[in-house]
């Protein structure tokens, strides 16, 4: 599958296991543990997807997605969270987030989703 994905999640083990799984399935993957690093990557590289956790140490994931919309950076957005917060889901819908994924996450489920949306 010829897509490039950015995973943003502060749990380094999560990132490592997920990026490994996606790479094994021929998906180009990069990861970031903070919103700041994610933004720097997004400014300098193009990605087909961003898969971002809503809870990050320096900013909420939804804020990063809103920043992306303001910057008019084209990337398909997937938001992850443990909680189904209606306000967050509404904000995500307003900026065209493709999917909301509830944690825990099975890597195979994300792979299916990328294939479906890609």
């Amino acid at each position, binding site marked *: 599958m010829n897509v490039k994905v950015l995973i943003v999640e502060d749990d380094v083990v999560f990132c490592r296991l997920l990026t490994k799984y996606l790479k094994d399935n021929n998906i180009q993957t990069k990861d970031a543990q903070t919103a700041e690093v994610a933004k720097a990557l997004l400014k300098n590289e193009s990605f087909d997807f961003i898969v971002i956790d809503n809870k990050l140490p320096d900013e909420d994931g939804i804020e990063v997605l809103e920043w992306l919309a303001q910057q008019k950076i084209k990337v398909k957005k997937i938001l992850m969270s443990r909680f189904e917060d209606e306000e967050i889901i509404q904000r995500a819908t307003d900026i065209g987030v493709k999917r909301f994924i509830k944690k825990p996450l099975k*890597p195979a489920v994300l792979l299916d989703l990328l294939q479906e949306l890609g």
Partner: protein
Amino acid sequence: MKLSITDNVHLVEPGDFEASEHWYPRVLNSNIHPLVSHFLYLTNQQYVERYCRLNPEANPEAIMKILNYQPKYFKWSGTDMMHITNQLGSKKLTVIETNSCPSGQKSMPLLNLNIEKGGYKRLIEDTFLPAVNAHKEEGKLAVIYDKNPMENIGYASTLADAFKEDILLAKFEKDDPNPPAKFIDKKLHIKNEDNEWEPIRAAFRYVTQMPWSRIPVGSRTLLLNPIEACLAGGRNKSEAYTAYLDFNKEFENEGISINTPITYLNVSLEEIPTYFEKLGKSMVIKVPDSNAGQGVYTVTSENELSKAIQELEKNSPEDKYLIQQLIYSNYIKGASKKDSWYHVGTIPDKKNRSYAFDLRLMMSYTSEGIRPLAIYSRRARLPLNQPLPDGADSWELYGTNLSVKQMEGWSYDDERLMLYDIRNFANLGLGIDELISGFVQSAMATYAIDKNAIRKFDK
């Protein structure tokens, strides 16, 4: 694999083991040196026979008693040793420290290419599994850790395969205000997918930062290793030295002893300069609970002494420190030929540089007694046999720690890792007799700390 079933907890399932995730890339492509493999396949009887041939004063029965000893608390251990010599050419391995959560699997080439999980499998199946099966407690299985995810995910997936069960992999950090693990009535519980506390019958434990702040003595959950192993010397360097002294006393008539540098315990901050003079203006200062090279200072000048004291004043002014004789870089003219020890060093490279290195040996208790599991070395940054560049401190010459503080265990100072493979091992200048001697020293240190734990906690 289910990622993030709750904050900092992942569910590892049977079949999740991925070799490329649990060894450094360089190690995956290495082949074990035949001499090392030969050493690892020798029986305990062969170790004893050979050791006693070269050390005729040693009582073979006493060494066999140690190698066959079944530790009560300290079933899995790792030692750091230095290969040292004196002007008389009397070489030996000296124990620098013993660790109750030793790393090493990711740096160890496979002993048998057909056993994909290597030392992970041997530790889990030969040491942990029999103990868990004999432990009558209800609940799930877990791995709790605060460092080294590369090895701990490997242990979790090996456990999942060995027990054919899902394993909770939980990060249990010192400063986490809402840790996903806690002990309730001395039984470990971990938050599950429903955010409820799941009881745990047994856990592989790699919690290194002040683990006693969250793991109780007398845990009902079987832990490899339990906290008693840390408190008796597996983490506290002063306790370890006390345990070695007790061991040396117990075995003084058996011709064996644990080799350590000259050591002074319970030294206050104010007393440190006195020891600097006493030890000939060089020494090592250690904070007893220090870990991974943090809180360890090599001091070879007044300038380094005042820098070390300043840092100690800032970070741990109330501690009592451990002071050790520094193993010199070279023989110093005029020093005692017998008692002045210096590093053997690596075989000189093409630029004639020889480096201080340590030898890290991991071992565990199995049905065949205490057995070596993994072994590797790390060298210092600067060579021993060339002048120290301006501005460099002595740690560059003597410090062998590889930790790089990024990426939580996936980064390391690659060029200083010395694998025991066909390409690197010969550069250490070690032979099979040194490996046997190192193993015997390590087993003695493990025995000493376990006995210390029994004295402290079995009342």
